[in-house]
């Protein structure tokens, strides 16, 4: 897997972020799950979102996708502040989520699954021919050549092929941002490789891609940017070529690695205090942006 960012100028210099979250918060009752989180996603690039279990990754994604709304904070899309209060709002912006547990219907074929919920109709009748043609074109456009027939039931597909269908579904519409939640979690080596290639291809075609993964090998294989969440805070937003594997591990497990990460007053000795009093919000005025400056 080659990383295009190794030769190009730092992308964030000339590419404006497609999506910028600034200081978003989310609480469930007294539990402050997201605290002043910043998150940037760039078109044509893969941004990995990593963090330990319970760090708030899924909550962040749900907020972006509109299935849960943030309590406060700025949601900026294509440079303009927007309000996203439902999945429909997010879809209208061109945001699609591919969920961890595959959201496919085993008893339907690939075409039916690709268009599920948004079937094309002609005079109220399903337009099977057009749907099948579009589906074929989309899979061909993604260089997916492993499926035997586009009319086979999804139940007969391998894990990797199913993930491919789920991803293809997200790009079938005018999507600009595709969010993948653990797309390779259940896959073997060869199939993981296949899906990662597809992820890279999406970005190479100009889409912004967010990849949630626990596997740092996968992250370093495809991601241009890495965002680390630590206990509901942005520990770092860095370019993957600027950090090492071990630094990211430290950021995930401790929120800090050398000069990278959360400032001292938010660090381990405070963790216990924070856990006891989750409403405490240390002035995380933007450790992420500072971090990026430091790493240049």
């Amino acid at each position: 897997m080659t990383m295009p960012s190794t030769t190009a100028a730092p992308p964030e210099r000339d590419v404006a972020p497609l999506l910028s979250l600034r200081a978003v918060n989310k609480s469930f009752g007294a539990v402050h799950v997201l605290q002043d989180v910043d998150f940037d996603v760039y078109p044509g690039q893969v941004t990995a979102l990593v963090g330990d279990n319970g760090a708030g990754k899924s909550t962040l994604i749900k907020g972006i996708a509109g299935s849960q709304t943030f309590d406060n904070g700025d949601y900026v899309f294509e440079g303009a502040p927007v309000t996203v209060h439902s999945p429909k709002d997010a879809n209208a912006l061109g945001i699609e989520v591919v969920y961890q547990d595959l959201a496919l219907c085993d008893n339907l074929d690939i075409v039916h699954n690709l268009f599920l919920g948004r079937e094309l109709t002609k005079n109220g009748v399903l337009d099977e021919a057009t749907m099948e043609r579009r589906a074929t074109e989309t899979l061909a456009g993604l260089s997916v050549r492993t499926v035997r027939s586009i009319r086979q039931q999804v139940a007969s597909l391998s894990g990797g092929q199913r993930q491919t269908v789920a991803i293809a579904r997200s790009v079938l519409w005018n999507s600009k941002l595709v969010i993948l939640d653990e797309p390779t979690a259940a896959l073997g080596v060869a199939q993981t490789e296949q899906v990662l290639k597809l992820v890279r291809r999406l970005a190479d075609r100009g889409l912004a891609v967010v990849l949630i993964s626990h596997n740092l090998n996968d992250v370093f294989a495809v991601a241009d940017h890495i965002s680390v969440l630590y206990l509901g805070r942005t520990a770092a937003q860095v370019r993957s070529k600027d950090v090492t594997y071990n630094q990211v591990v430290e950021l995930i497990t401790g929120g800090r690695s050398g000069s990278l990460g959360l400032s001292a007053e938010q660090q381990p000795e405070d963790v216990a205090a924070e856990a006891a009093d989750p409403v405490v919000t240390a002035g995380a005025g933007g450790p992420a942006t500072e971090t990026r400056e430091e790493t240049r």
Partner: protein
Amino acid sequence: MSTATSPVTEGPTQLPTPEPRSLGSAVSDYLARVRGGDVGSLPAVLGLVVLFIVFSILRPNTFTNAFNIANLVNQSAAVIVIAMGLVFVLLLGEIDLAAGWTAGTAAAMMGVVLTREGWAWPLAVVVCLLTGAAVGTLIGLLVARLGIPSFVVTLAAFLALQGVLLKTIGEGGTIAIRDETLLALNNNTMPVWLGWALFAVVVGVYALLSLRRAATRRAGGLQSESTAVVLAKVAVLAVLLGIVVAYLSRERSRNPLISSIKGVPEVVLLLVLLFVGLNFVLARTSFGRHVYAVGGNAEAARRAGINVNTIKLLCFIIGSTLAAVGGILLASRDNSISPTTGGAQTLLYAVGAAVIGGTSLFGGKGKILDAVLGGLVIGVIINGMGLLNQPTSVVYMVTGLVLLVAASVDALSRRRAMATGRV
């Protein structure tokens, strides 16, 4: 959704148009599907053929005569229609145990306004259908909104509707049906020419639609069936239906000089209309697709933006409304409505019909044809056993056995399908 463009493909990718599917490959595809566990209607068709042969050998004069065949169709019609409604419910992976009593209750409401209020039959039919729809709405809301298992809700409805029916008609009472049109529905035959006209329309429309579909697909650069395959299918349909219509068009009155009986039963027209209409809904509309999606994976359907609750509600309404249609047929056939109309084995036969036809109790798999084929299988058993002078006890046992076989075929083909990746 009108703006489905794929940003990942720069312009339409030119793909080679696949060769149309030849007759040989169509047949071998089908055989491969069956071997893979996707048996479709095969068990029901085989069962029907075997039962026909067995009863024809055992009772060559009484079973296989036009009179009995027409009788068989009339006997099975109500169960077939109720089963058609159950297909919608079973596709969701739900059950409607109250469908039989819904039929009885709706028929009773029709009977009341017909006889006590003296309403015209079309109005009475509307009352019947609305009763069914109301029952379906209630069941659907309880299942979809409150999340009570359909087994429990419809078990409660099973008991309650039985009470409503008894209350409406009165202990030991009956409501006689005297309306000529309603009586004709499940007893009379249509003129011979009308039977053949119906035959011509069905075969002609099927041929036209199939050819048009193949042409559209070919024009769109998609794999299509060759004209030979389409014509072969049309020919098979024409021959099968032609034999039945020809047989039913024969004189079957014991005393033709006094009263001639020949022609296709009137109820067949209703069955054909329901079959075509419901098939269209399930196979060719977004709603139908969503029904399969909810039955296959409700969570996936929800995430795809499908309103799962609405789909469930609509399916229960459709199921109960069709049960009401079944109630009209029961009333027509019995010339009356009694506190047992729609009771006894009605529901079990209807569920059995759908399952024998190939509809899965696990949801996500089934079609309207299943109700027809399964309903005929059950009809043939009841009819044939009756001609063999078997006591009711034996009929029950045999029907139970056949249902068990059908459920086993369902379970086994599912396992086979799991193993080969076809669900």
